[in-house]
């Protein structure tokens, strides 16, 4: 298991950089994860996506459908890609501290 440093915290991550303990996530961790995904600073729009993903995950135990994410946050898919260059699953979900998506997605 690889390790990931966010400030003074050390977190376990999988080979693709997803954190393994979603409970340890906080805003500093998000910022550190974001810099690895080509996002230098998290703007209000980034936080809107991250908080939505986070809330959904805590409620349902799984990431939301991408189309639902777009509809509920009001961002088009290409805008999500502009915010998170590696995309909604590998970028935004990772920054929000969700585990790597599973199944044929």
């Amino acid at each position: 298991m690889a390790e990931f440093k966010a400030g003074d915290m050390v977190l376990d991550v999988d080979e693709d950089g997803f954190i393994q303990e979603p409970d340890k996530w906080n805003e500093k961790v998000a910022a550190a994860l974001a810099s690895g995904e080509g996002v230098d600073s998290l703007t209000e729009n980034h936080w809107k996506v991250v908080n939505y993903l986070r809330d959904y995950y805590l409620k349902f135990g799984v990431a939301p459908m991408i189309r639902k994410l777009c509809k509920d946050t009001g961002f088009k898919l290409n805008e999500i890609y502009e915010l998170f260059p590696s995309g909604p699953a590998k970028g935004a979900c990772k920054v929000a501290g969700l585990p790597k998506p599973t199944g044929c997605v």
Partner: protein
Amino acid sequence: MNKNLSVKDIGRGDGPISTVDLHDQIPLPPPFDRLEEEPFIKPLPDATRQKFACLDDTVAIGIPRPASKEEEEKLVNQFLSGMRKLFTPENNWTFLQPTLMSMEHCARCHTCSDACHVFEESGGNPLYRPAYRSEVFRRIYHKYVKEGSTFARGDIDLNWTTVARLIELAYRCNLCRRCAQTCPIGADNALLAREIRKVASQEMGISSKECHDNGSMLQLKVGSSTGMNALVVKDNIEFVDEDTTDKTGIKVETPWDKEGADILLIHNAGEIMAWPENPGAFALLFNAAGLSWTLSSDLAAYDAINYGTWYDDVQFARVAILHAKAAAKLKVKKIVIGECGHAHKALTVIADKVLTGDLNIPRESALTVLHEIVKSGRITFDKSRNDFPVTLHDPCNMVRLMGIVRPQREIIKAIVPEERFHPMTPEGIHNYCCGGGSGFAIMSGHNFADWRHHLTGRKKFRQILEAFQGEPMDKEHPKYVCAPCSNCKGQIRDIIKYYNAWEKAGIYYGGLVELMVNAMTDAKPNFIDWEWR
């Protein structure tokens, strides 16, 4: 590459026994024909090479090197005892006969190599010959397993390195069975790769994390490998219904748990999460055609995937039984499997070995059901709405394995202008795998995704580019790769992204039902979004 790789090399040394060189690969068709501009496989960090069994440029499973001699011996013995079980009827109730036939009958003619896309795209690397892996397995069989055998096939050193690399090598094959199709005596080298995976999983607890822990185990626990439980999937389908209604102007409602319906439709649940227009289009078409159908919210019954198909008979049987039980509970006449190739193999073909008595419910492909809908004339289509170049990918499990060739072509004829359809070469039962078969589309640990794009997926990408040659290769002229299988769709998406082929050449992808609804006269036009995802 090591051109002179010998079978015995599998048990020798610590490092990779062969690697891939970009310059051994054949350039792709334009506009991707410059090898030097291609991204290449990122090298594995030294720490990874030292930690796991090392075969080639990548790591699929990651088998940790044993800490002691005792541990090494234990792993070898587990593998051998598992291998012995493979040849007993009570332990190999699924594939004993074809396994035995394939072990005994290989003339080493290497006809299969020329049929294999991995071997071809590697530039002819001997490690990826379908028979290389099988030859190692056969030698172990003749030396240690089969009683009264001779060493006529040649010797092999059986040590931990041999076993670990052999298991890794079983995950360098898409299990597409093009090699089996071409073998003059019917040896099935893909089956042997699958049986090696089975011994590793059932006897040694070694499998791919994506297929096992986060795959079949998750499906058995919460109901779907996507992690959706019944509550979430119902909520998501409600969203899909609303979305499809908005887009098409036709009210769509998906029935759940309707007892006495004719059809239980089971989708690959990945469609619901990643390509919701697919289940949306199915609901629209089935309703418009007046079919009596339902989804089931029982455990695992709303996810057609059965990853055990790729690596483990026990996991396979557990899931297949849940699928059949849900159908029996709803008293449906048949199960219809959505656009998912390996679910076709699992539930229509292999499940015959598991489902007996009341559980032996008729199972059918969605492709033939959709063809019946088109033939019935109950839905009218306007071909001119699909006025863009279309090519068709044949998912191995539906087409080569099951022989479903014509239905999807007849459908295409009814919904795409004839001059707009560009078949792939070769096609039908002689198709090539998308490169994502056998679990690869969902496996991406370490640098495995890179390896997959360069070795297993490159042939399909080549075929797609060849099919569209003559068309303007830019984003202003969008082209559609129709792939009626979730796994193939995921792989084709990944390879298009890897080569930036949407931006650079306007190559897009999707399923078959989306293309049907896009041409449906009663629906609002432009069902297909042409929005990258």
